Each structure stands twice: as C-alpha cells, then as structure tokens.
C-alpha cells in the first residue's frame, strides 16, 4: 500500500513523460502487478487525452498586436502617478495590490500575532477582574470593647489577627497548664516530692495570680467563660503559691482534688480547642500549640 501511494504520485509525471528511464521501468513493473494502480494510470491517461481537446485560451490577433502598446501606456501612466491611485479608480485590483504592498508592507502573520496578543490581554483582564471569586468577608469572632477605636466603635477581633489581650490570655493558660500538669502528675509515693521544685513553681504561681487579677479586670464580661476559668485557676494557683517549702503532701493532694473537681485542665483544653476552631475557619494555623497539640488536647479532653 505504501508502494502504491509512492507510485501513484508519480503517475502524472509518467503520463507527461517526465520520468527517467529507470524510474519508468520500475513504475511499469509495479503497474504490471498492481491492478488498482494500473487502473489509475489508464484513467488518468484518458483524462489527459481528453484535456487535449481543450486548447489553451487565446485572443484575437488584433488583441495581441495592441498588447504592447496598452502595456507601455499603462506603464507610462503608472510612472506619472506612482501612488497607484489611478489604478484603483479604474478598478484594477491587481494594480492596487502591487502599490499597496510597497507602501505598507506589513506581513500577514503580524496581523495574526497582534490579534493573538489582543485576545490574550483581554483574557487576562477578564480572568483577573471579572471572573475572580468575591473576596470573603473577614470572620468576626469576638467584639473587644476593652479597646475602643478612635471613632468610639468597638474593635472587632478577627480570626486572622488576635488582639494582645487574647494572646496574653492564651499564654497565661498555657503557662498555668504546664504548672498544673507538673503538680498534678507528681506522685509522692513513687518519687521524691522535692522533684516538684516547689520554690520555682510557687514563684511562677505568684506571678500567674498577679496576672490573673489584671486579666480578669480587662476581660470583665466580654468572655465570661474565660473569666470564670481564670478565677478557678487563680484559686488553685493561690494554693500552690501558699504551699510550704518542705514536703506538704496533704496540701498537694488538696490541690490535685481541686484541679480535678473544677475540671481545670479540661476547661483549658476546651478553651484552646475553641480558639483553634475559630482560627481554622478563616484558614489560619490551629491554636497556639499547632494542629497536633490541638488534637491531643481534644483527646485529653475526651479522656477527662
């Protein structure tokens, strides 16, 4: 089939006698064995013979005698008017094309390229300005009346930008949680009670109690749940701060019972989860301890 395609393309040359002897012999050999190509050859040969019945177009002898004069006259005319306007007036598109090309010879591909650029620019413009999804309004999570705006309006705390108070509260809870975990997880029967390093924890508790007072004042009624949690923490922290320096196992047990009965750790974790959930809605990172920590908190809360 591939050979047929090759030889068929050469059939017109063979009919017009343009093939060299060797190629012609090869074609003849192919035609001898290929009936379809042979049919094509004979059909085309008949067509070419039929075409001989139609002579080339010609005009009268008078037309040809005057041809040079007309051409010369036109050439002289074109020389006089090099802008080719006359040719256009007389309705000679060929003459017009000749002149126009010389005067303004921008290649055709340039138009295509320009059109492509225009479409591309238009597409980018539409994509950027018209098809862009509407910007999501910032998630309002909390009203912070403690820091009023200059215009008297309350400052709205968004999920993406936490206020200093929220950050401070978060840090406070974090530090308190570490402290409570150290106290709660100590086992006086199994290990040395002084491994608690009470002086350090008492000092830390004192600081936290002072900070709790300030935080409670600032929070007031904006977040009652957090305020109650800090109040509970304050009580526990006071107990820790008042521990005696030497081993006071009964006092530690009381503190443990207080932490357990008030669900202090659970409430801290719950607060962290609440904050993390609020931030994750607006696509921010989860909570102060990250996602893994948050999951651990939820787990711990569930266990509690």
């Amino acid at each position, binding site marked *: 089939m591939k050979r047929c395609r090759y030889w068929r*393309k050469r059939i017109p*040359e063979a009919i017009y006698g343009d093939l060299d002897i060797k190629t012609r012999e090869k074609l003849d050999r192919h035609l001898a064995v290929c009936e379809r190509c042979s049919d094509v050859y004979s059909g085309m040969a008949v067509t070419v013979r039929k075409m001989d019945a139609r002579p080339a177009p010609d*005009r009268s002898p008078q037309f040809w005698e005057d*041809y040079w004069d007309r051409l010369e006259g036109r050439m002289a005319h074109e020389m006089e008017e090099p802008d080719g306007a006359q040719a256009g007036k007389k309705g000679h598109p060929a003459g017009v094309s000749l002149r126009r090309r010389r005067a303004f010879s921008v290649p055709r591909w340039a138009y295509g390229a320009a059109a492509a650029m225009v479409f591309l620019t238009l597409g980018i413009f539409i994509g950027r300005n018209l098809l862009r999804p509407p910007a999501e309004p910032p998630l309002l999570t909390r009203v912070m009346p403690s820091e009023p705006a200059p215009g008297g309006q309350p400052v709205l705390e968004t999920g993406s930008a936490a206020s200093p108070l929220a950050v401070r509260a978060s840090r406070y809870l974090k530090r308190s949680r570490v402290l409570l975990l150290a106290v709660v997880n100590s086992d006086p029967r199994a290990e040395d009670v002084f491994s608690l390093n009470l002086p350090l924890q008492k000092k830390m508790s004192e600081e936290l109690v002072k900070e709790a007072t300030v935080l409670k004042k600032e929070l007031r009624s904006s977040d009652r749940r957090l305020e109650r949690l800090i109040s509970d923490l304050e009580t526990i922290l006071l107990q820790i701060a008042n521990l005696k320096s030497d081993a006071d196992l009964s006092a530690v047990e009381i503190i443990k019972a207080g932490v357990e009965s008030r669900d202090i750790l659970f409430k801290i974790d719950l607060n962290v989860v609440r904050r993390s959930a609020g931030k994750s809605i607006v696509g921010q990172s989860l909570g102060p301890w990250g996602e893994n920590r948050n999951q651990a908190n939820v787990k711990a809360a569930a266990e509690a």
Partner: protein
Amino acid sequence: MSREEEARWADRLIAGDPSAFRDFVEAYKRKVYGLAYEMTRNHDDAEDISQVSFMKVHRSIGTLKPGLGLNAWLYRIVYNTALDHIRKRPFYPREALPSLASEPHFDGPRDPAPGPEKAAEAACLRRRIDEALTKVTERERAAFILRHYHDLKVKEIAQTLGVSLGTAKCYLFRSLRKLQKELADAETCLDTGDRP
C-alpha cells in the same frame, strides 16, 4: 522553451538590453495571459493581471539571479498576482463564473473534426472540461495548467507555487484525479442532450 533559450532571456534582461523587455513581453504574453485567464476565468482580469505581472517583472528584474529558472520566476509572479486579484475582487458564486466555452471570445484553434455533430461534441467536451476545472482548488488547477498547457516540470511547478516537490506532485495528482472523476461520463455528452 529550452533551458538555453530561457537562460538567454534572463541574461538579456539582467544586462539591461533596451529592447529586451519588449521582446520578452512579445515572447511571453500569451503564456502569462493564459495562466492569468485560467486562474480568473475572466478576460479583463486576465489582461489586467498579465500587465501588472509584466510591470512587476520590469521593476524587479534586478532580483533575478543568473542561472535560475526564468519561467518559474515569471509564473510565480503571475500566480501570486492572480491570487491577490482573486482575493480582492468581489465575491461571485462559483456558479456565476463565466464558462470558457460559452464565451464568444474564446478564439482557440478551430476543431478539425468534420461535420456539425462532431463539432458540437467537441464543444460540449470543452465545456465539460471548463466545468471540471472549476471543481479543483486554485493550487491544484494552477499545477495542472502549468504542466499541461505551459509544459513546466514538477520542480518548476513547485517553485512557482512556492511548495515542496512532493506537494507539487500531490497537487498534480489530485487535480488529475478530480478531473478524471468529473469527466468520467463526458463521452455521453451528446446522448444526454447536454449541448453548449
């Protein structure tokens, strides 16, 4: 026209012989006009295209390099000028194009066949051929016309059309196949009462 003759014409034109251009026009006017007519099928357009082509030759004769084919160069100018003309002229439905055989100024050689019946048959065949030539594309028609009426080799046809050798062969083959298909029942022209 032999290669030597073609080269001689080219040399004369390049040398700037004062009478060379006129002689050249006289020698080539029928061929140039013939190709222009086959492309446009209109005598006025054909004359216009042939004149513009000769003027282009006159202007750009300096670009012709010695040794290169004058025929292919000239036919290329005519072919491109005709294409420009076709693209710029107002649209006419293909059916509205004049038929060569039906035009009174078709002054081809008289059919030597004796008798009115044979003459009518020959005229009918010419008309069928003209109609068949309208069914092929411009490039295919140009390839066929250049080979059949102007005796150009396939290589020269390729140069004229500005295509590769294989493409020129393809155009020639396709034009002949289409003409063969269109003229398959041309012998029955008289039997069916299809008269010019």
